[in-house]
């Protein structure tokens, strides 16, 4: 299967890049990643000399499942803590040895035009494929007016992006922070400033846990803790939504997106791409399992494409964007009821507890533990489906238009009808 990717002019043999983070901190790691088969890397963020320092205690905190599955990871690591020249020399030799892979360099310098102009010249000398402006990191650097401190102010994003565009011919990717209220504003600002693409999400401000003996947030540094950036599987839903919001925004429709946030398997990657991401960047998954997961990702994407009859990435990129809409346009005439498959039911009663205690009292329980849906009460909320431990035991069945919805006593109308037309909506614009 041909997985070749072209992301705003940057070519890579597959759409899987490593995000700017510890895995791309130096030549040694990046060479291992390329040997393993990764399509590209975004080099760990460079800054001005003298280089920053990191804490000398723990940098990561985590949220685990019962079998210590890593669900979320939090970090307080800063940008590279090595001299600029060391990084530049390594980038140059790696790119020379791997001309077919994408090497993009992440940057974070103060909000002064000369600082950006100066460093961009040095990046160009490495013959890297492009730059990514780190307006995303929510910890440490933001206190110094960089990272998410820039990403949270659309005017700053536009200003710095414009400086960068004026100073270099390289493709410019703007990395966005999710620590804002509406992701479309920073994306539009990047677009206004001339960015070739955006990448998102960077990490979410977070405290993963509190030590209940020391009363200190984790990870603890000498009895104190600070918020870090949260990533890993737990943040994927947040990232998917933000990617989709930008993809369907008329003001940024043509802006390429590099999808980031909890991508762990080929399926996650495909989901991001159907919502408009042209490629993806991975970090926590390789920090958990190592670089070898690329084999599963490329094989999985290939076999899925094969099963769908796709021959190139373009055939499915953005395929789901048209199906993301606003609440007000959802079809209110789509009426469903929960259905419990009694052959599959194991009689745990979780659907009953959930519905009875927290929802609509729409499930009955008999003395011999038979659980049934009460159509007169069921609002089709889907909670029973979600809490049921058995696959496909509870499903939603559509009530055919023309039949009566026992909850409302009304006939289910044929066709499409949404809130904008609903009589209860004072702003309704009823269909003529």
């Amino acid at each position, binding site marked *: 299967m041909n997985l070749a990717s072209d992301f705003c002019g940057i070519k890579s043999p597959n759409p899987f890049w490593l995000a700017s983070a510890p895995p791309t901190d130096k030549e040694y790691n990046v060479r291992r990643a390329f040997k393993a088969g990764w399509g590209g890397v975004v080099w760990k963020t460079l800054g001005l000399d003298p280089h920053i320092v990191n804490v000398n205690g723990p940098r990561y905190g985590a949220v685990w499942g019962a079998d210590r599955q890593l669900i979320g990871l939090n970090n307080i690591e800063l940008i590279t803590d090595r001299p600029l020249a060391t990084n530049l020399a390594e980038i140059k030799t790696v790119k020379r040895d791997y001309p077919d892979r994408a090497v993009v360099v992440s940057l974070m310098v103060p909000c002064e035009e000369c600082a950006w102009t100066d460093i961009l010249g040095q990046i160009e000398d490495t013959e890297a494929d492009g730059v990514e402006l780190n307006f995303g990191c929510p910890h440490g650097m933001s206190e110094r007016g960089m990272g998410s401190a820039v990403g949270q102010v659309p005017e700053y994003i536009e200003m710095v992006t414009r400086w960068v565009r004026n100073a270099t011919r390289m493709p410019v990717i703007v990395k966005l922070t999710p620590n804002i209220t509406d992701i479309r504003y920073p994306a539009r600002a990047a677009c206004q400033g001339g960015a070739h693409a955006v990448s998102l999400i960077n990490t979410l401000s977070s405290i993963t846990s509190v030590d209940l003996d020391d009363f200190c947030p984790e990870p603890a540094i000498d009895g104190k803790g600070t918020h870090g950036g949260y990533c890993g599987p737990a943040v994927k839903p947040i990232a998917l939504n933000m990617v989709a919001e930008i993809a369907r925004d008329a003001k940024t429709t043509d802006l390429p997106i590099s999808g980031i946030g909890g991508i762990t398997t080929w399926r996650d990657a495909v989901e991001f791409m159907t919502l408009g991401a042209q490629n993806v960047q991975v970090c926590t998954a390789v920090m958990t399992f190592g670089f070898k997961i690329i084999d599963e990702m490329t094989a999985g994407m290939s076999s899925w494409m094969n099963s769908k009859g796709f021959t190139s990435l373009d055939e499915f990129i953005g395929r789901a964007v048209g199906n993301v809409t606003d609440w007000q346009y959802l079809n209110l005439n789509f009426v469903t009821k929960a259905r419990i498959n009694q052959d599959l039911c194991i009689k745990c*009663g979780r659907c009953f507890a959930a519905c009875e205690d927290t929802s609509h009292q729409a499930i009955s329980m008999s003395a011999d*533990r038979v659980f049934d849906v009460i159509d007169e009460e069921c609002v089709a909320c889907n909670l029973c489906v979600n809490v049921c431990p058995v696959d496909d035991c509870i499903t939603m069945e559509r009530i055919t238009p023309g039949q009566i919805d026992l909850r409302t006593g009304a006939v289910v109308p044929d066709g499409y009808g949404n809130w904008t037309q609903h009589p209860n909506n004072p702003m309704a614009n009823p269909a003529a």
Partner: protein
Amino acid sequence: MVNTVRAGKLPEEQIALNFSELHPPLDERQAAVEAGRCYFCYDAPCISACPTSIDIPLFIRQISSGTPEAAGLTILDSNILGGFCARVCPTESLCEEKCVREVAEGKPVEIGLLQRFATDRVMELEDHPYEREASGGRRIAVVGAGPAGLACAHRLAMKGHDVVIFEQRHKPGGLNEYGIAAYKTVNSFAEREIRWLLGIGGIKLHTDRPVRSVEDIARLRSNYDAVFLGFGLAGFNSLAADGRQLENVEYAVEFIEQVRQADDLSDVSVGNDVVVIGGGMTAIDAAVQSKLVGADNVTILYRGDRERMKASSYEQDLAAHRGVKIVANAQAVAFEGDERVQEVSVTRRSVAGREDCVVERMVADHVLLAIGQTLVEPPVNLATEHGKIAVQGAGRTSLDNIWAGGDCVAPGDDLTVTAVAQGRDAAEDIHASLCSR
């Protein structure tokens, strides 16, 4: 002829290995993963399947949330011998049989092992976790220090009563101490658990103090505010077979007791060809242990269909796995030999490929009878039912101020956990009854 029933048939190391713990305990991580499998069912079926009604989903959730001691207390609140029950309960036919994951996928949550994990944490604590209510000055006599008597005594002590236990044997514990396979309760657990249980205070334990005569009971009734009888079944069913008196034909319970009480397992004597007669847990425990101390061939003879055996299929598989042969529809009719047993005559029905009953002779130098135990006529005129003490409600006998529980009451299912429930409930009833006077 030499006596082939003798000790030392296996090297000591082999015996030690044979009697290592049947189910090793879960470590913290294993417990967390297993606890994560519990669905926290609504009105959970496992709770109703437990004779002591332990709130199983709650204690498992407490393990999940990292509070195993709280989980242990949830268990012990309902079943003060929860540690022992975690080891010996036939969970495959109680809570785990009703676990929805057993129904769904044939792999229940390992409730027994989780229960052990939690109760072990509590028993590791320095102090006994329960406190006594202020003493009300009432005194209660408990006859028998088995599971029923101990559970009753502990609950009464909690309620502020002063309890005196009279145990006829040298050690407390009843069948927990004398009658259950050693590999289910290693490292003198039964003994340690009783020491822990008595840590509540207010319980005086007298061992080697049988309560036998009418006068004994009368004295208890007049000296104490209430009496609880939990003396189990001390008699044995008789077997209508010739040659019962031959040497090396003994009761399985006595054999198990020798194993349990042996300081050194290589001192336990066993035959080369052991025949166990019976179909319950005692038969399995005796058969498996005779194999483990060095018998060459061990056969269980059960007179009915295999499905009717009281030992669960899990227990039957355990026996088969240890090399015990189970023959159903086989009735021992006579033991033969001069002085010592040498053969058993067996009538077999429904043998595949043969139509009528057949009589076979089996080589047997050691016969263990596990055909059930009976109530020794109690030294007081109590109403009985099916040969056991008849009770109403929470263990009320036909006489005022006398309660009973455990194996000695009808109908009885011979389970430790049932005895605990009956002892506990009788204690609550005694307390309520004394308070209302």
